[in-house]
């Protein structure tokens, strides 16, 4: 499949852009950052093209459907949403340091998709349960939500790393990381966006479940874990209103929250149930 070939190369291009962001952080030279952004944008264009190509390829095979239906396609889409969201954030904040923490997420997702032996990249037809318009709405909202939480996670890591910086320490890497209040504010905004999208994701999933299985909530592991993730981020949003809950606690919650996201995405496949991606 041409699309999956292209995507396996894009994986490496994201890694290269990560290296350039890192180089910028370590050497302190602007030019590396500009190069990194350029490579990321070009790579993203290729990534978008490959996804569209896969969609077209599926129609050529006679089993046309949006490329959102199995673990491989979801990983590719997840990486795509991370990069898109990151590029928007970089454009709005003019800050390239976040790229060092965002591009690895995209790279890892793509690498897992393209190179893991357990993941099948062939285009498969949709089984009856997946033949629904809700598929597109549910997958898109969930993964954009995950991407926002992923960026918040990266920002929280930066926040914690920044704590190690002080005037006597001569690390350009740490120095160039934005100030904690900025990271905190940006991380909060990402969580807000992610929370709205995750809510939409859970809702579209519920409505779909109701039309497919007759029950909008059946406490299966995937549904339950998405709720657990939702509760953790809801707690994080509320904690802003509690005096004394400063940056560290919020950064910790953001990291825990993203761990819940990862478990919701990957971990539940090991717990079986209606949602299991395993075997696709």
């Amino acid at each position, binding site marked *: 499949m041409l699309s999956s070939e292209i995507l396996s190369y894009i994986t490496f291009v994201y890694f290269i852009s990560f290296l350039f962001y890192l180089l910028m952080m370590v050497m302190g030279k602007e030019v590396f950052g500009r190069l990194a952004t350029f490579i990321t944008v070009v790579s993203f264009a290729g990534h978008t093209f490959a996804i569209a190509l896969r969609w077209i390829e599926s129609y050529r095979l006679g*089993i046309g459907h949006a490329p959102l239906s199995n673990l491989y396609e979801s990983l590719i889409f997840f990486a795509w949403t991370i990069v898109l969201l990151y590029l928007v954030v970089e454009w709005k904040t003019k800050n390239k340091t976040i790229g060092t923490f965002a591009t690895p997420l995209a790279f890892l997702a793509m690498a897992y998709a393209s190179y893991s032996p357990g993941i099948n990249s062939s285009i*498969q*037809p949709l*089984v*009856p*349960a997946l*033949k*629904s318009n*809700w598929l597109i709405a549910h997958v898109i909202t969930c993964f954009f939500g995950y991407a926002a939480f992923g960026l918040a996670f990266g920002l929280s890591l930066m926040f914690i790393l920044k704590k190690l910086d002080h005037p006597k320490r001569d690390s350009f890497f740490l120095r160039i990381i934005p100030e904690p209040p900025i990271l905190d504010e940006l991380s909060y905004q990402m969580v*807000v966006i992610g*929370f*709205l999208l995750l*809510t*939409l994701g859970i*809702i579209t999933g*519920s*409505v*779909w479940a*109701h*039309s*497919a*299985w*007759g*029950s*909008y*909530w059946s*406490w299966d*592991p995937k549904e*339950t*874990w998405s*709720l*657990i993730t939702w*509760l*953790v981020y*809801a*707690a994080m949003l*509320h*904690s802003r*209103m*509690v005096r004394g809950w400063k940056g560290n606690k919020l950064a910790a919650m953001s990291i825990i929250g993203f761990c*819940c996201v990862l478990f919701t995405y990957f971990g*539940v496949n090991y*717990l079986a149930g209606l949602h299991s991606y395993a075997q696709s």
Partner: protein
Amino acid sequence: MSDHALEGKFKSFYLWSAFSSIKLTLFLLILLAVVSIFGTLIPQQEGAMELAEKLSPGLVRFLSSVQIFDMYHSIWFRLIIGALAVNLVVCSLDRFPSSLRRFRSVPKADREKLFENLPPERRFPVKTRIDQAGEIVASVLKTKYKNLQKKDGSTGTFYFAEKGRYTYFGVYLVHLSVLLILVGGIIGSLFGFEGFASIPEGEGVDKVILRKSRTPKPLPFTVRCEKFTVEFYPNGAPKEYRSDLVFVRDGRIAFQGPLRVNHPITFEGITFYQSSYRPVAGDKVRIKLTRDDGNPEPSTLELTRGNAIELPGKEGRIQILEVSSDFRGLGPAALVSVHPHEGATKEFWIFQNFEMIRKRFPSAMLRSPSLDPSAFKPYTFSLEGVEMKYATGLQVSRDPGVPLVWSGFTSIVIGLFVTFFLFHRMIWVRLAAGKKGVTVAVAGMGNKNPVGMERELDTLVDQLGTKLQEPKSS
């Protein structure tokens, strides 16, 4: 007030302040999250039976009594949710008055203080006369904002406008939505039902088996499955399941149509979902008869259950009483009844996998009259084939809580959007006439999103600047 009454007041005050605490909210949200994790690691409901077999009976009894195997429907889980709901209500009631006050408070149009340390980019001179400038300012503000006010102050003429005052209530809409969803869930579980029906092709049912109690629930109508179709892709994965259903009410066909996955059918308030299917034995069998007397020619009979036909040698009549796709794990089987013209009727089971059975089981067992294919001499009967058809598996349910839940879903999305993405902005514009002309100054305040507020003020300054410098057309 007596000591007792005072004590009571203290206690209720304490309870109220405990439940209006956001720290409690944090605690309950995290508690609910952590507790929910266990339900995903410990098998629940049907899946728990396997685990239960491996544990000691005493432990299983104990765990069942604390409802570990159905924890999401357990009392203590519901108590946590209930506490969260109470917390939500109390917090909202507690904070609503101050939100209402903010909503109702009328800001002063002539707020001199706002203009004291205004950054230079928010101030610009214009050549227009102050009254014309005022009209233009008013018209620009009117198109973008609401509640325009004008007041003459000591340092100039003030204009005030605002937008999004209602956004203070966004958070209450979110909380109300959560309650709506919870209430919808409660109504569904109290007044709805969930059941299952298995309908072989060509047959109908007028009751469903309830999922929780495993008891039958009658329906006020009959559902027939005329035909079940399953199609597969070339790679063997299922492509479509379709049941052609007919709904019969008082003896007449009230509705008929195809049922597919993701396309349920609702009839008289009860919804049917295509869930599963299984092969079942039909009514036709094919039997081979061999004679162990002179005549070596085997003959084949095709029989429909219930119809008796003459044996080829006219010894009597043969009838199939029952057909099974899997008789006690031994494979397809049929219950044969032979009624000779003279003598007693013989009934015995015959099996399609007879050779395999004969190897597995001692031959003495197969001499037992009800399992002996040669029970009616001179014939030996063997089962060649059993017609297979499908029985469709349907999920059947009614959930009167669903409209509430859907409303809750809609309103929570609106509420979240209003709470986080919209904000209350107040704009003041001051026109001051001086020796050099009129100076326009723009200031603003928002209850959230300082960056967005700055952007909005920048845009307004640009707009006013452009409009006020325009040459006036007569």
